[in-house]
């Protein structure tokens, strides 16, 4: 035992010594990798060593020791202290050093999240996790394994705004497919909570159409929410999948979400009574999936959409007529609905309370909102142009890469007709191995 402790202390001394320049740190990294088992065996006694190390200067060494010492099961009393120390480490560590050992960092942060959830205080974990993500990311377009954990904490802590800030970034590199699914799903839930339905729709769309070889539960749940959000936001739902959806999803998703598809059908029919019947029929299923809140919003949307349809036919209408057409119970309810819609900006109208008439007006700023290219915003226009040029460049790169992919070439070669007199040249077919 003592022998081991001595070697651990020599390691600590080496950590102190070798944390200077980049080459030293690489050397240290290989040393630490070799001494993995040493750390594992001494995991219980490593905690006091942490006080000797500085989390900023010796981040790599600190990380290894921290990882080893937290791998043992932690009791509830120690949890709070551990949470504090890990949070401190995350705030202080040096990003370049921890990027050398990303999986260790990820496992430490995951344990951090578990402890925080165990303490039932997710709020404490939100800010450190955000810092951790920013330090681990190679660029702002990189999706790490910590992203979905962070979003989960935001959801549980109900601080949606912080979660939204992460969702603003475009994603280009993904570490693990599972991260992507979870990230989009949680992100969509945060957006739904903030009533940003367009972004939620986009995220759910990404989950449903992501490439996959087998169906997973995340996609099934996401598809159910996708139907509901699409009904709320767009007002209709099309069952056909875009062509970039995986064939696995195309074939199997519908089987798992029957009640939702029926809901979508009855929504399309346009009658409130039918919709309510449908909701009643599948009430337990919706409740089991915890989508009842969304379903209620769907019903509310139905009323809104019907009233909006009225604006296109009538210039003025009495409240009673509105109630009758939209199948509301009374003129008072109709007035409540219209008032709410005017406040939310979904409709432009004035209510004359004396004779109970509603006058529908034109949107005064109809095209103003949609402007990006107007006379005083040339910089914005230029920025859009630059962004799309970057995107175009990335897409052509990806296209070229994919064209050189041997898997693609093999399959593309197979499809060509066999005896093409024009070119007997090098089309790889399945007969010849590359």
């Amino acid at each position, binding site marked *: 035992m003592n022998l081991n402790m001595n070697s651990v202390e020599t390691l600590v001394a080496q950590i102190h010594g070798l944390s200077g320049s980049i080459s030293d740190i690489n050397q240290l990294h290989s040393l630490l990798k070799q001494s993995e088992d040493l750390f594992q065996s001494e995991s219980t006694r490593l905690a006091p060593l942490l006080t000797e190390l500085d989390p900023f200067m010796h981040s790599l060494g600190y990380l290894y020791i921290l990882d080893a010492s937290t791998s043992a099961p932690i009791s509830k009393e120690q949890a709070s202290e551990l949470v504090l120390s890990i949070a401190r480490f995350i705030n202080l560590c040096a990003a370049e050093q921890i990027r050398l050992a990303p999986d260790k960092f990820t496992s430490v942060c995951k344990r951090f999240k578990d402890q925080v959830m165990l303490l039932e205080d997710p709020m404490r974990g939100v800010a450190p996790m955000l810092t951790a993500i920013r330090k681990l990311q190679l660029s702002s377009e990189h999706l790490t394994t910590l992203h979905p954990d962070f979003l989960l904490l935001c959801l549980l802590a109900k601080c949606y705004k912080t979660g939204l800030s992460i969702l603003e970034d475009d994603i280009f590199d993904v570490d693990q497919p599972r991260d992507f699914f979870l990230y989009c799903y949680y992100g969509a839930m945060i957006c739904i909570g903030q009533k940003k339905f367009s972004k939620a729709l986009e995220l759910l769309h990404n989950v449903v159409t992501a*490439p996959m070889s087998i169906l997973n539960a995340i996609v099934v749940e996401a598809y159910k929410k996708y139907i509901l959000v699409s009904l709320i936001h767009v007002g209709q739902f099309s069952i056909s999948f875009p062509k970039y959806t995986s064939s696995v999803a195309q074939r199997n998703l519908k089987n798992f979400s029957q009640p939702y598809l029926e809901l979508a059908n009855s929504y399309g029919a346009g009658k409130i009574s039918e919709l309510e019947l449908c909701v009643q029929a599948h009430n337990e299923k919706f409740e089991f999936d915890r989508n009842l809140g969304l379903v209620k919003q769907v019903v509310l949307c139905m009323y809104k959409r019907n009233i909006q349809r009225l604006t296109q036919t009538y210039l003025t209408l009495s409240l009673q007529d509105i109630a009758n057409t939209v199948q509301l119970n009374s003129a008072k309810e109709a007035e409540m609905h219209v008032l709410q819609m005017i406040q939310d900006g979904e409709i432009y109208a004035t209510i004359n309370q004396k004779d109970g008439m509603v006058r529908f007006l034109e949107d005064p700023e109809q095209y103003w909102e949609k402007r990006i*290219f*107007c006379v005083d915003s*040339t910089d914005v226009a230029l920025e859009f142009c630059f962004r799309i040029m970057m995107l*175009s460049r990335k*897409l052509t790169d990806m*296209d070229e890469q994919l064209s050189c992919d041997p898997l*693609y070439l093999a399959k593309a070669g197979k499809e*060509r007709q066999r005896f093409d007199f024009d070119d007997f040249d090098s089309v790889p077919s399945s007969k010849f191995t590359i």
Partner: protein
Amino acid sequence: MASSSSSGLTFKLHPLVIVNISDHYTRIKSQSLPPSTTPHAPSASNVADAESSSPPQQSPRVFGCVIGVQRGRTVEIFNSFELLFDPLTHSLDRAFLEKKQELYKKVFPNFYILGWYSTGSDAQESDMLIHRALMDINESPVFVLLNPSINPAQKDLPVTIFESELHVIDGIPQLIFVRSGYTIETVEAERISIDHVAHLKPSDGGSAATQLAAHLTGIHSAIKMLNSRIRGLNHYLLAMQKGDVPVENSLLRQVSSLLRRLPAIESEKFQDDFLMEYNDTLLISYLAMFTNCSSTMNELVDKFNTAYDRQSRRGGRSAFI
């Protein structure tokens, strides 16, 4: 024949003259192209053949007169007209010249015959005869020479102006040609029309895309040149500010007057129109990029589906990729 002139005259050449001469030369050259003859072995008995077939490689020389105004020490050459050259007498057609001179006098009473022009790489001895012949119209005519061979390395115009001077060579006073410097002078109207004529595209100049590309390339090179010139000026001014170069007030005045020329218009209506057009162009390029991106994405998705999606293309032959 070389050496620079010492007469102290300043020559100003209008681009119209250059275009005229080059047009004349091109016309004559393209008209005189012999029909392509099949090469057969030259035989000794074909002396007559050899005589009749003119060597097609030699470029024909064209001749003409230049007219303009001489005010004091400045000779400004405005225009030119063509003349027929009689190879037998090695002289220009006199009667024709006088008739033309009369006609031009009626339209441009100020213009006098200042000299003559021809094409070639250098002035020759025989040209002196023509020069002397013109000396009775103008005591000291000028000879404008255009070199029709295209030399891509050459940056300047292939136009040289020669004067005649009396030099004593071997004890005999002789007239020889001496080169003179000249500047190009132009009026706004002339510049626009010459520009238009010089940039005529052939009628089958390709689709609208190639014409647009040619047009934009021209604009691009013009802006590039402007940029490099301004940068040179900027460097110079910075050096002057630092003190590396002695301060020259006249140059500074010229630069300042140049800078004050722009902006040419400054009004609100102009700003509005300008920004609107700018935004329209940006919008169009944005739309084009968008379409480009969408098409790349489409192809990418197709490729991805072919490569990675199992069971999607089993069996039937799909369309050619």
